């Protein structure tokens, strides 16, 4: 009660030291308040990704586990799942000659999927953010993905994993105004890199090309 009274009182003169302390606390609270929120990262890019297309019609699916991935720190929240879904949606469109969207419910595994050659699914999106500081400890961002291609009877054709990480040592005051912007850029670089690694891996995978040519042969058969 006594403390409250003293804080609320404006008439009583304060010592310079105590006044400074109040101001510092206020600035700290304001800066923390300005930092909290969702990290804004673009979930797509302007140019269509370059990819030697796979001649197949596939349905795109994003597992709930991947879609809802979030990373929360004391200062902000990053919706890594939503960002990843946007990026992979664009990537899958570039990878296959024809794409459709697999149903969310009932799950595509329980539905007749004979209208497509296969289903490509983002299975997992795992992200980790470790905040550093201005004194030389870098901010660490790591993103890992797992995607699989299934045939239209839900048998696995091939799965791929990709991972990327980024350590960023802050310059003095670089992330002072808005920590989420600073981490957002780092997260964007990492997500871009991990998706790119996955795309290149799939592009160079002979299994998927063989599978696609088998689908084409089957369709050509009377």
């Amino acid at each position, binding site marked *: 009660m006594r403390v409250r009274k003293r804080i609320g009182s404006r008439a009583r003169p304060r010592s310079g030291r105590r006044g400074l302390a109040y101001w510092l606390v206020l600035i700290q609270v304001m800066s923390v308040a300005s930092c909290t929120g969702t990290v804004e990262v673009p979930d797509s890019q302007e140019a269509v*990704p*370059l*990819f030697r297309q796979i001649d197949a019609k596939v349905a795109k699916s994003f597992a709930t586990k991947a879609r809802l991935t979030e990373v929360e720190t004391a200062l902000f929240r990053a919706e890594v799942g939503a960002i990843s879904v946007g990026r992979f949606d664009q990537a899958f469109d570039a990878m296959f000659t024809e794409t459709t969207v697999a149903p969310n419910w009932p799950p595509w595994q329980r539905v007749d999927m004979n209208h497509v050659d296969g289903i490509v699914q983002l299975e997992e999106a795992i992200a980790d953010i470790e905040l550093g500081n201005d004194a030389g400890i870098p901010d660490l961002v790591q993103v890992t993905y797992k995607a699989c291609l299934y045939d239209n009877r839900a048998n696995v054709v091939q799965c791929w994993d990709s991972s990327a990480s*980024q350590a960023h040592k802050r310059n003095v005051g670089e992330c002072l105004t808005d920590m989420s912007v600073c981490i957002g850029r780092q997260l964007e670089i990492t997500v871009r890199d991990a*998706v790119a690694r996955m795309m*290149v891996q799939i592009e160079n995978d002979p299994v998927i090309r063989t599978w696609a040519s088998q689908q084409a042969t089957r369709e050509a058969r009377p």
Partner: protein
Amino acid sequence: MGKSTGHERSKTVNIERAIIVLFLTGSLVVPPPAATSAEKDTEIQAAQNIGLLWWPADPAQSMYSFSKDIDRCLTQHLLKAVPQFTLLRHETVQDMLYPLMEPGTQPENEHDFAALLRRKDVRLRLADKGVRFLVAFSGSTRSEDWQGGIFCGGGYGGAGCLGFSWADKETALDAVLWDLADIDRPELAQASESGTSIMPAFLLPIPIPASTQAGACRELGQRISTIIKEKPDVQNIN
């Protein structure tokens, strides 16, 4: 109303003749021939953009700030030196070539880079964006430890420093210039500048850093622009 004049009749006959002639020559049934490789080269030569790309990108580098400075500086210099070209900065070119130029997917050496530029989809994308030259630049700044000495002290009457320190600094940049009309002959350009950062201390230490980065970048920009200007077909572009 139903009767046509002699002039209209002759006009109809002329149109019919033209259709027959076109049909006989095959123009109506044969699609236009696909562009030959020579025509594609002409398209590339007519392109008017220079793309800048930080390569090989070092993901450990502090949020690419060094590359951004060099990118900005080279853009400014080349805009002045070869004003007939438009400059596309690193991020634009990296987006254009996604996913092939990310830290984990970029080509490891010049041979792989050339192979990438030979990819049909890459060439089409670059041609579509009007890129004639691609400048792949890289480099770093190396700073030595501080030499000399500064002594600071304080007492009840006040505090202050006295002394002099210095540190050598060197920025080395290099670039590979790819002419998309002639991928087999990339041209190399290098530039470096060294200087000494000083820190005199009289009461307060005042660091005066050597700006080696700007000098090296200016020199590199000059070399790149000279190579571009020497291209015979570029000399004709105004």
